[in-house]
């Protein structure tokens, strides 16, 4: 490492706020997060340290600082000073120091660079503390303070301008036309009326266009009246990952409002974990009422279409193992649906040692895959997954999240591991039967 690199700070800053303003912005945001559930979870930790043993970053490195609940230390201090039932006493006696700007800056590595918000720690905690959700809430304050990794900030700015991190909406028709021609499949765009609004992940508009074509093949075969739409097409929701609540709301509204405008009764989300978290479980809160449209993930859609006989697949007849994307399975509840689709494809499923809601994260969720400082750490985490996949002896390796695929492909490339990471959707599309 060069001297210059060694001296460069391990954090980024955005905006022109003074240090005091950054601390103030973070604290104001933190305090707003403490509703009853967050407060209960801040109060209940017994510092048993078990969460460390669930975290892929700790397991891969052995470093204590990656203990999930330690990643909440500044958030905890904000809570006990400002919002806890004994806050006045805590402040009066000076029992807990407020976070300083230096601490907030250094915190970026823990809150963005080494937490994928996968929630495996939530599953081990004897107190049932949802640490992942608290990290997500803490990120809101870091965003307000202008203290997020620059790569994520760049994506945030792109999404603010374009409504997507991949492309401006006005370019969507051209992209879809190219994908349509390349893969020989019809992709409707900007229809005035449709029963289903179909959305994409950013990678599907760039490197993973095969996934987009696969979705089109399945939708067309199922006889769905569907469209993609410039008004709302990128479901990945970078605001959800970055802690940018205004952007999260705007991106969510663009999709739901577009669906309502074209009379759709369903929004279909791509093979993307965070899209599911942001839209399926959080969209309604921006509207203050239950949404008038149904939001489903691609895995659910495939499962339902197969069950209804609207699509059929040819059995592949090999063994396969499945990586459970955290936001879709552990925090999304689609464990059984994914396995039904795997079974429909005729795979003999050999489960990973840790699978389902206890499966290990790919290491790239929550924006970590886009965080260049976290790259060496991600590669260490990849070894956990690689060892578990190799141990199954399965012929194929399948998952249902594009972001997981990208992370795992990057890890495989670095480790010179040659097993392809396959998309459940693409496998269905490639094996559609008449």
């Amino acid at each position: 490492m060069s001297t210059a690199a060694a001296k460069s700070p391990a954090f980024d800053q955005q905006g022109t706020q003074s240090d005091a303003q950054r601390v103030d912005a973070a604290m104001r945001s933190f305090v707003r997060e403490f509703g009853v559930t967050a407060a209960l979870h801040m109060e209940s930790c017994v510092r048993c340290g078990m969460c460390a043993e669930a975290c892929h970053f700790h397991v891969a490195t052995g470093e204590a600082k990656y203990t999930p609940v330690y990643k909440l230390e500044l958030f905890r201090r904000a809570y006990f000073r400002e919002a806890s039932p004994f806050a006045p006493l805590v402040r009066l006696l000076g029992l807990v120091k407020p976070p300083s700007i230096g601490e907030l800056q250094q915190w970026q590595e823990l809150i963005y660079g080494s937490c994928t918000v996968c929630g495996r720690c939530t599953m081990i905690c004897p107190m049932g503390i949802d640490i992942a959700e608290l990290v997500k809430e803490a990120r809101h304050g870091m965003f307000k303070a202008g203290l997020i990794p620059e790569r994520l900030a760049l994506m945030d700015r792109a999404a603010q301008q374009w409504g997507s991190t991949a492309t401006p909406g006005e370019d969507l028709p051209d992209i879809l036309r190219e994908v349509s021609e390349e893969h020989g499949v019809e992709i409707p765009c900007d229809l005035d009326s449709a029963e289903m609004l179909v959305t994409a992940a950013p990678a599907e508009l760039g490197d993973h266009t095969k996934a987009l074509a696969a979705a089109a093949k399945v939708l067309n075969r199922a006889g769905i009246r569907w469209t993609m739409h410039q008004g709302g097409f990128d479901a990945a929701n970078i605001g959800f990952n970055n802690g940018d609540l205004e952007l999260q709301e705007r991106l969510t509204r663009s999709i739901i409002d577009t669906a309502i405008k074209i009379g759709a009764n369903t929004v279909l989300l791509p093979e993307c974990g965070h899209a599911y978290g942001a839209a399926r479980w959080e969209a309604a809160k921006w509207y203050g009422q239950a949404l008038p449209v149904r939001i489903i993930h691609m895995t659910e859609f495939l499962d339902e279409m197969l069950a209804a006989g609207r699509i059929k697949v040819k059995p592949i007849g090999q063994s396969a193992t499945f990586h459970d994307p955290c936001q879709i399975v552990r925090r999304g509840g689609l464990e059984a649906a994914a396995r039904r689709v795997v079974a429909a494809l005729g795979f003999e499923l050999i489960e990973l040692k840790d699978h389902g809601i206890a499966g290990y994260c790919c290491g790239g969720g929550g924006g970590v895959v886009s965080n260049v400082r976290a790259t060496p750490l991600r590669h260490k985490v990849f070894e956990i997954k690689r060892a578990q996949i190799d141990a199954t002896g399965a012929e194929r390796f399948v998952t249902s999240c594009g972001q997981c695929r990208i992370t795992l492909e990057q890890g495989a490339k670095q480790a010179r591991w040659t097993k392809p990471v396959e998309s459940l959707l693409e496998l269905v599309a490639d094996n559609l039967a008449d």
Partner: protein
Amino acid sequence: MDLLDFARGPALTFAGAVFVLGTLWRLSGVLLLPRLRDLSPPREGAPAPWRGALGTVLRRMWPRREFLDRTMFSTVNSYVFHIGLAVTVFGLAPHILFIRNFSGLSWPALPSNVVFAVGVITLVSLFAALARRLTHPVLKLLSHTGDYLSWALTTLPVLTGLLATAHLGARYETLLALHILSIAAFLIWFPFGKLMHAFLFVFSRGATGVRFSHRGVKA
């Protein structure tokens, strides 16, 4: 008023008041915070929220198989001192008598030599927990002064109780007074530190149970 009278009288009364009022203050201070309703439609077949909460409260009584290997010591040791504390607090005849005096509730006592043996095991287990906290890199990093205070104020009543039972180190009356004073200290600290998890765990697990069962996940 001698030390034992002081311990049995004003000390215990004051400690009891702090315990009750402090616990109510902390619980109500948290439970009365705003609650954001989850407006997303529940997963098909999701249980009622109270069932989801109860499920997680009960499931977290034992660890998931996947995590057991890496948490064996903490898991086993925690069971030992939690069960040990329950047996010593609620199994010893004088304790039951004390509880009956202010609540009217009583139940059959365990033989005192059994409770004594359990007390010794509990004490060993508590020291093992402390040793781990002082030496394990994760626990060292996480621990606050309050955690060590919680440990000390949990251990002292066990230690003084054993000494009093064994008539070791001082006059029985003095040992008993120290035992009661250590319990008073425990009760005074209880609402302020992590000992509150004895009540909070139900709500904390329950909140996660509600969130996850809504999504169709057995957390």
